[in-house]
């Protein structure tokens, strides 16, 4: 592996760790309408836009495992599976079919966040038989989705800088 590539991957690794701590830290990112953002989803997806399939899948797997570790639920692997598949597909599409720009990044982040958050709602709320699933979707999961994709573009800009400069 070339030295530049090694440094780039190290930068991604540190970025992922930093964003994981930011998204978990109490009192750091403001809570907007009961929601806190999932920074690692746009991070993994935007890395996949610039990197080859194997590396993208590995970063998706790592981000997913970190989200699983921070989630109070006891199921390790759910987010890892989702982000591994999404990053693999995004990297494939970015290599052959997609034009990489801010709009594409925003759309891809939106789709990835929507898939992840709808699955969270289905698996951690609806399937457990809790009351008012529609209310939970609109008042809790939708703000989480919007908050997450709102941070997609700054994270895309950061990863674009890392990918093109290093």
């Amino acid at each position, binding site marked *: 592996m070339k030295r530049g590539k090694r440094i780039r991957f190290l930068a991604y690794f540190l970025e992922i760790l930093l964003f994981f*701590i930011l998204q*978990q830290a109490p009192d750091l990112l403001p809570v907007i309408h009961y929601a806190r953002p999932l920074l690692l989803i746009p991070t993994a997806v935007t890395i996949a836009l610039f990197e080859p399939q*194997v590396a993208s899948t590995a970063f998706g797997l790592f981000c997913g495992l970190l989200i699983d570790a921070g989630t109070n639920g006891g199921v390790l692997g759910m987010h890892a599976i989702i982000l591994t598949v999404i990053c693999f597909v995004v990297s494939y599409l970015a290599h052959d079919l997609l034009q990489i720009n801010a709009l594409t990044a925003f759309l891809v982040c939106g789709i990835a966040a929507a898939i992840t958050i709808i699955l969270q709602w289905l698996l951690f709320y609806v399937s457990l038989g809790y009351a008012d699933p529609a*209310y939970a979707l609109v008042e809790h999961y939708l703000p989480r989705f919007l908050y997450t994709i709102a941070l997609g573009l700054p994270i895309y800009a950061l990863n674009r800088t890392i990918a093109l400069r290093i």
Partner: protein
Amino acid sequence: MNRFFQSNQFRGLIVVLFLLSSLTLYTSTAGPGALGDLLNSAAMPMQKVLSTATGKAATGAETITKSKEELLAENKSLQQQVNTLNQKLTNYYTALQQNEQYKQFLGIKNQHKDYQLLSATIIARDPNSVSGSFTIDQGSTSGITKDCPVITSAGVVGWISEVSPLSAKVTTIFDTSAQFGVRDTANRDTGVFANDLKLADKGLTKMEYLATGTTVKAGDQIVTSGLAVENGFGGKFPRGLPVGTVSAVKSSPYDVSLYAEIKPYVTPGKIRDVMVITDFAGKAEAAKAASSQSSSSSLSGASK
């Protein structure tokens, strides 16, 4: 497209997905295990440092970010408080009475000499949780086990739902799955503490299954009863832990019973430090009763 499915990368993805599915199936039944502990232990020191830093920054920012008007209003309000306190101080007998009240409050501590308390700091909040679950900086190495009650000096916060060697995850009483026995201290009426998301969003919880002629009324103090509830968490809380005060009594929309809306003493989203009750008298019996109840309910569920 055929080239895509026959590529080595795609085969690698299938292998990784197979391993992850096995991990998910395993952890859904047996808990996070060694890998979960490893990830939590690796993240814990960084989270601890950052939570300390952000806590100090937030405290410092509170004074810096206030406008002149806010500071004047705060000053006025504090001056009023000082005047009130001065009046109280001049009344010797009132002060004596208050002192007696404080002694009674301290008596609660003396009543619970059996509690083994461990203080902990919140180091992470779960962004995927709708009920404000959080992670604390103490784990199994400090003697914390699953289901230990978590409190503050004001009242119940929640319980330990996952334990790693150096950290533990806490599920709060605002979680939709929270169910335990509670009691009104004024009239000893008992009910079941429960939750729904709409009430939780307003900062309220409820005490369900009150009889039609209940004497529970607004202002009453609600404490844990220590009784187990079927499919609930109940028996693992010691009796007498303060939960909140009744704000209203309403009719249940589903049956003829009533329910009381409770304003909990603790708002989990605003606290930074908690205490974990690692042991209390009767804990083993309560845990046994709760587990036998859950196993009997699962047997009856299976027979259905």
